[in-house]
């Protein structure tokens, strides 16, 4: 398990900044001296994953060469997968190939990347096939997310319990708890909100945390606070898709026009769930209109 070693954990801060979505900070602070070879690989993974999160796919693809370690190759696969819809099929087949290779198939990062890709493909079955065994906090957290996606909060809760056994205070454990709380809803939302509140007090605010808090607020019907949080997030990153999407939702609820945010989102992230939902809804509506007429 990452970070469970007896020696000092040099990557602790890097990991946290990454998990909390401060990707540029993570990249900027990645020069850590005296890293063991394994730690260096993990560091590189985190850095490249941060680049991916920032959308710099080509950088990752060009910087990781053939000689790089398996985890980095896996990260490269993710970059390739995300860089263009044309690459998807070929990437998936190489992922499958690598997973079948018994020498590297069990690599935690590879499995994590595979899980992420299959999750994008909405093939949760395939994703879980590689991630369910866990092994790292990242994998468990991904499992929680997959189970939530599948609307199986019961399984998500079990995963969460495993994480809590390893390290209850781990950032990912906390985050996963909040996700699950949000998925379960009701009185749990308050808890989720408090978890994000903790994060925002301990670490610099990121779009991720701001959005998460805003989602909590919206779920509690507190749209005014959600709006101010989202606007703060928009200040930090004017193109963040989730911020835009949530602003659309929030504006609808406070009775403001949402069209600007929506067109922004359509322009910058045509593949975003909200965009897809809206366009499919329009089709749906027309169809329904015809059927009722």
């Amino acid at each position, binding site marked *: 398990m990452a970070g469970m070693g007896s020696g000092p954990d040099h990557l602790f801060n890097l990991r946290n900044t990454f998990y909390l979505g401060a990707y540029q900070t993570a990249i900027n602070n990645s020069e850590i001296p005296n890293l063991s070879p394994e730690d260096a690989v993990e560091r590189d993974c985190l850095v490249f994953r941060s680049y991916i*999160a920032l959308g710099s796919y080509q950088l990752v693809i060009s910087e990781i060469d053939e000689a790089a370690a398996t985890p980095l190759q896996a990260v490269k696969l993710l970059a390739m997968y995300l860089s263009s819809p044309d690459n998807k099929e070929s990437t998936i087949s190489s992922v499958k190939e690598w997973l079948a290779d018994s020498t590297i198939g069990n690599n935690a990062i590879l499995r994590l990347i595979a899980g992420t890709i299959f999750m994008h493909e909405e093939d*949760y079955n395939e994703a879980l*096939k590689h991630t369910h065994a866990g092994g790292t906090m990242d994998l468990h957290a991904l499992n929680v997310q997959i189970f939530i996606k599948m*609307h199986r909060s019961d399984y998500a809760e079990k995963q969460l*319990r495993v994480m809590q056994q390893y390290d209850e205070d781990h950032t990912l454990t906390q985050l996963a708890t909040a*996700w699950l709380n949000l998925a379960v*809803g009701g009185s749990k939302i308050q808890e989720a909100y408090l978890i994000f509140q903790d994060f925002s007090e301990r670490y610099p605010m990121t779009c991720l945390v701001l959005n998460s808090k805003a989602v909590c607020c919206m779920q509690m019907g507190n749209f005014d606070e959600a709006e101010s949080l989202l606007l703060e997030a928009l200040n930090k990153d004017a193109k963040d898709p989730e911020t835009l999407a949530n602003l659309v939702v929030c504006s609808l*609820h406070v009775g403001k026009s949402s069209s600007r945010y929506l067109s922004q989102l359509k322009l910058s992230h045509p593949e975003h769930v909200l965009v897809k939902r*809206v366009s499919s809804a329009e089709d749906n509506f027309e*169809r329904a209109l015809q059927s009722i007429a």
Partner: protein
Amino acid sequence: MLTKFETSSNQVRGLSFHPKRPWILSSLHTGVIQLWDYRMATLIDTFEEHDGPVRGVHFHISQPLFVSGGDDYKIKVWNYKTHKCLFTLLGHLDYIRTVQFHHECPWIVSASDDQTIRIWNWQSRTCVSVLAGHNHYVMCASFHPKEDLLVSASLDQTVRVWDIAPLRNKKKTPLADDDDIMGLTQMNSDLFDATVKYVLEGHDRGVNWAAFHPTLPLIVSGADDRKVKLWRTNETKAWEVDTLRGHSSNVSSVMFHAKHDVIVSNSEDKTIRVWDATKRTEIKTFRRENDRFWILAAHPETNLLAAGHDSGLIVFKLERERPAFALSGDSLLYAKDGFLRRYEYSTQKDSQVIPIQRPRTVSHSPTENAALISSDLDGGSYELYIIRSGTVQRDAKRVSGGGSAVFIARKRFAVLDKSTGQEEVLVVKNLKNEVVKKIPLPIPTYAIFYAGTGTLLCRCEDKVVMFDLTQRLVLGEVHTPSVRHVVWSNDMESVALLSKHTIILASKKELVIQCTLHETTTRVKSGAWDDDNGVFIYTTLNHVKYCLPNGDSGIIRTLVVPIYITKVSSDKIFFLDRDGRNKEITVNATEYMFKLALMRKRFDHVARMIEGSRISGQAMVAYMQQKGFPEVALHFVEEEGHERVRFNLAIESGNMSVAVASATKINEKDYWFRLGVEALRQGGNSSIVEFAYQQTRSIERLSFLYLITGNLEKLSKLMKKKDVMGQFQNALYLGDVKERVKILEKGGLLPLAYITASVHGLKDIAERLSIALGDDVPSLPQGKTHSLLMPPIPVVCGGDWPLLRVMKGIFEGGLESGNDDVEEGDWGDALDMVDVEEDGEGSGWGGLELLDTPFMTPSQGMDVSQIWSQESPLAAEQAAAGSFDTAMSLLHRQLGIKNFAPLKSMLLDLFSGSHSYLPAFSSSPVLTSLTANLQPPHLRLALLSAMGVCYKARNLATAYNFAKRLLETNPTESQAKTARQIVQAAERNMTDATELNYDFRNPFVICGSTYVPIYRGQENVSCPYCTARFVPSQEGKICGICDLAVIGADASGLLCSPSQVR
């Protein structure tokens, strides 16, 4: 008198209650001492060592000892646990009449016909004092319960009180200092140191009994002069207070009652008499036909008394101890210490209401605040009280034979009047105690109980009948042993009928029995419904128990003394104790709540309780197994130590994953075998079957399994096993002729190999074999056409068969908690028998790690949108879920809307607004999560648009209408502001711009499309959405005001909150 227990034996001369246990010792004229359990009515033991009648017995207060004294002049001390006579004290020279332990000192006092009283130390087993003075038989002697006094009665017609304080002081001097001889002499001189304090003279004949009052300086005595005398003592003298006359023969025993102010005496005149100790009048007489009474005994703690007579003993109480009470809502009316009191549960306020006689039952009419107090007095009577604040109006006391009076309605009560001799007639009276009507009863009735307004439960000997007094109709009947109490649930839907040993739970409707419960060994005392849960809580002599509607019962807790439950509220039990005090206890209701949840199949509750792990124990496991919930029981079996139980439960509930995990842990052949059988039976769980067979090394089974599942690949791997027969069989299964020939050849069966090869046309092999065979080449049968025997090619190589997914509900998830990795299902290659090729048979089969990887992804759960679109009757939710067609048809039905185009943006907004987006793991898809509050904005948006439309058209009155409605929905500030502006504008100018023919004297509305006024009473149609009115000719068109709905369409009205649906 309430007789609790009776024996029939020889004449009983001595009695003693055990201070703690429900035991009584009786010593018989035959010389036998019997130990009885009066509660269970069983003879526990007999002690037979005395020769001749035993007249005195007594239990020690704390040690397992008792003492007996008989006509054989012997005092024996026994240990009842070891059933042994520990020692015998000798010294008396004649019959011994009574023996008694001292409550503190290790002393025994004995009274004897040798005219002496002796005090013995039962530890040193010596006589410590001889009290001489009486000059005839001493009939009884007993210690004072607190002071250093002793009272004795003698046939010399006197009662003597002795001071034994010097004796106690002597005890303190150390005896060890004296040598033996000195001690003996000292003892002899000290033997007579107890002195007579008073001699009570007054009886004209021999005195049989004398007893101290437990607290007051009083003595009571009974004598052969048939009199009971009461004496008073002070520091210096003693005198006679009064004489109680009534017995017609020798008074044999007499005593003060410890708790009531009465004197109880018995006599050879076959009666027990109870006297008022203050008024000194006789209260009651209990008579036996043939038996003279000889002895009385009182229980040191409780109210029980016992009397011995010529043919046995009786244990009895003078009066019932159950406090009479009636519950109405939050308050309890109950009787205590000569008062009717009221207790309020919520405030715990306890107040005295009216003074009353000790009642048997209380019936209460809460609205009129009237109480009926029925008592046994004068052979049955009742009193009616109207309690008004401040003053109590006491209404006509009405005596009637056996009368039990019960309220049947607010101002009516029913009286069972037996005095008239017409048992079957019930009298209904009003609050003035006037007869309203007389109703003949359907059965000879002994008692009546309330059963809802105008309805009674009538009890006769063997059944209870529910009788409707207004219809005079029998609504239902139940056969039951004599019912003593009836307890209704709060909603009057269920009733509990309590008899001595039986509880019947029945429904009000037609009195259908839900369950019958027998308490075989103990008596049912009281009960109350746990109304929240429909569980009946009751008490027996020594337990609080529950009874579920299905008849399951169990103990909640034990009791030291009986209690009378008055009310149960969640986990609190309110009760009256025997002294009539209101108390409450908190009980652990988990067990019955759990069983209840199980019974009602409320597995969510069950799961919650399991999670809270408030339930444990083997009994629960057995219970659930027995009740057919092995899958639930599975949760209770901890993995450590109970793996076998766990396995059995898993098999029973068909939970293969747990079964596999268990079998792995147990790892015994038998269990693997059973696992295999069950997996097969479940149909196609072949990976588990395979695993089980691998574990048990059942090669034959395994190869057959591979054959039928078409797993040729593994079948061929199996061929590499050493077992020749098995190899051949597998080759046959596989249709592999070459392999068969090879096996036959290897096995030395060359002719067979040759035939096989040649028949199948393997010429080169056949030739090679024929060379090897030389001359012995077998001849092939001629003229036969040979056919190739090949097993059918499998169509599919099956893994597990798809199983129908049965909703296992809540337990589906929790089960695997302990072993996350074990799941049913087949990932194909996980069970590969990698090591088959190895030579050592054992080594290849050990791989347990092979199976702990099968993992099955859980099925997809249901999205909330899906739930909405499937179930919601709300257009808004349907739209939010993206089911626009459903939303539209709903809106059409509810509001008659036909033109949806203007609603497009609104509906789309609802949909897009329904989910927010949670960025989760870096680079993974976002999680969507629901946002709150959908319906009101929807309604608001609609109203807002309608209002705008009307305002722009200057139809101010209509716009006003909408604005008002909008304000009611609690809109956002900006919306509210607009609405208010419109309201103001409209109020200034309450007209519609397009009006015509304005006539303010006649109320009218204007047709929304033709602008013709429609006066009240004129025919018109309206738009179901915006309620604008139209002239009938416009019907069927789209309303021009809101541009949404069809004019005059039938509409049910908008549902905009789930609460409207329910």
